[in-house]
């Protein structure tokens, strides 16, 4: 009886617990000379279940570093990370991570790259391949399964990466400048594709970008980081735009412009500071 109550309570708590809670996270790197470099200082961020949060900041401020903490790839020097109410120890098994750098297995074809994401979890080869084919079709690459990554364009590789991550159906999606190297047209297509996929099954998303317009167009919330070292979170805005959205049309709305101007104002000072400190790197 008591057990049942406790269980029900735990379940209720799990339902209301946010997907990601970073509390006062500080990340310092030990450098070769013996000194330390504090990349991020006392960053706190909460992402609710099903919420799409973008993280915007000047290059080198620590956005990737923060995602690595949420993924469990990097332990914070101070502060804590909680996933659905539980402290994160080791890898974050509930998350899928679309990396900023090339992360596909170059020795596997596109379909094998996607299928392996299921096979690691014990799904049989045939079923994994059938479902990988479905996912490739969903991201518009149904006919490209037999190609190796080097035979695909940058945008196509990102789409394979997206299929590879989403096929595992993670509860939390971590995306690090996924459309960074793509041209403007492809970015829009990819953005709409991402929103379509996300709309079908709302996951918690931490989306890192340096493009403020993209951040506003895609997200429920936009979080701004200051320039490093010791980057902090300096702003958190709710995006007052309705869903579902088309990211090229949403840019014409008045609310979009107002929010953009407001955030820009804050961001500009930080970007300038960032250039001064990192030499534009």
């Amino acid at each position, binding site marked *: 009886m008591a057990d049942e109550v406790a269980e029900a309570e735990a379940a209720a708590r799990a339902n209301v617990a946010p997907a990601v809670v970073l509390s006062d996270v500080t990340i310092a790197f030990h450098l070769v000379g013996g000194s330390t470099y504090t990349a991020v200082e006392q960053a706190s961020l909460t992402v609710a279940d099903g919420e799409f949060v973008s993280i915007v900041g000047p290059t080198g401020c620590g956005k990737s570093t923060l995602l690595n903490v949420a*993924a469990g*790839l990097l332990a914070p020097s101070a502060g804590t990370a909680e996933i659905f109410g539980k402290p994160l120890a080791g*890898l974050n*098994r509930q*998350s*899928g*991570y679309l*990396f*900023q*750098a*090339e*992360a*596909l*297995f*170059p*020795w*596997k*074809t596109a379909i094998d790259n996607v299928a*392996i*994401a299921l096979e*690691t*979890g014990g799904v049989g080869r045939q079923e994994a391949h059938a479902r990988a084919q479905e996912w490739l079709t969903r991201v518009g690459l149904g006919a490209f399964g037999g190609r*190796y*990554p*080097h035979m695909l364009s940058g945008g196509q590789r990102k789409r394979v990466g997206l299929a*590879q991550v989403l096929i*595992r159906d993670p509860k939390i999606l971590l995306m690090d400048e996924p459309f960074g190297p793509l041209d403007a047209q492809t970015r829009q297509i990819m953005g709409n594709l991402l929103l379509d996929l996300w709309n079908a099954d709302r996951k918690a998303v931490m989306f890192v970008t340096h493009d403020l317009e993209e951040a506003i167009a895609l997200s429920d919330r936009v979080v701004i980081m200051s320039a490093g070292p010791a980057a902090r979170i300096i702003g958190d805005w709710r995006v007052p735009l309705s869903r579902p959205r088309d990211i090229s049309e949403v840019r014409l709305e008045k609310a979009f412009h107002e929010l953009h101007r407001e955030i820009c104002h804050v961001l500009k000072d930080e970007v300038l500071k960032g250039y001064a400190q990192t030499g534009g790197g």
Partner: protein
Amino acid sequence: MSRLTLFTFQILVAVITLVLWYLLTSVPVSGGKPLFPPFFFSNPVDVIERIIKWFADGTIWRHLWITLSEATLAFVIGAVGGILVGFWFARQPRVAAVFDPYVKMINALPRIVLAPIFTLWFGLGIWSKVALGVTLVFFIVFFNVYQGIKEVSPTVLANARMLGMNERQLMRHVYWPSALSWVFSSLHTSVGFAVVGAVVGEYLGSAAGLDYLILQAEGTFDIAGVFAGMFVLAAFVIVIDGVVTLVERRLLVWRPTAADTRT
């Protein structure tokens, strides 16, 4: 240049060389003697006749077979050893650190000085040559496997872990293909060294093999035999290299420029 013209020019080089060789060694100049005495330079007709004779009476096959088996055994044993030790060292940095100076020391040793020891240990048969080849092949494969595992992109590795791979799956889907690609990109070198091991071993003392043929001809001042042996050996190496290129093309399809990145 089209393929055909290229091929024509390549053939032309061979024909001109042969003709020059023939003229210089058989057309008498001052004093009724050719410019290059045939005793030292032989002449292409004799050499070709000798090669045809070897193939016609079948003596060459046994020697070819011996050299091929020595090189193949050296390659297989050296490659398997190199892969095993390479994996072991790359996954156990402490073991690697302990053995590091010794690996460097042995690798710095000119392998030729080992040949007499191997002859002493393994006799004049094929195994002393195999051993020499193994010492050459092993280190190339070993260094490439080690490097291949160390150089796996950290992002690819992080991705593999985020996709839920356990240690065994990491081995199979990440480390192994990466190591293998390095081994394959050095395949020409390692196969070449397997042949070098066999040939040098035979040269230093043997009872059969391609280089034994050359050695024998040398002993009797049979220059035509020496040249004939050299040509057969060169052709043998080219055929093996061609086979390696075919294998490489099949196995490294995923690489953007398999042909350009080989060492």
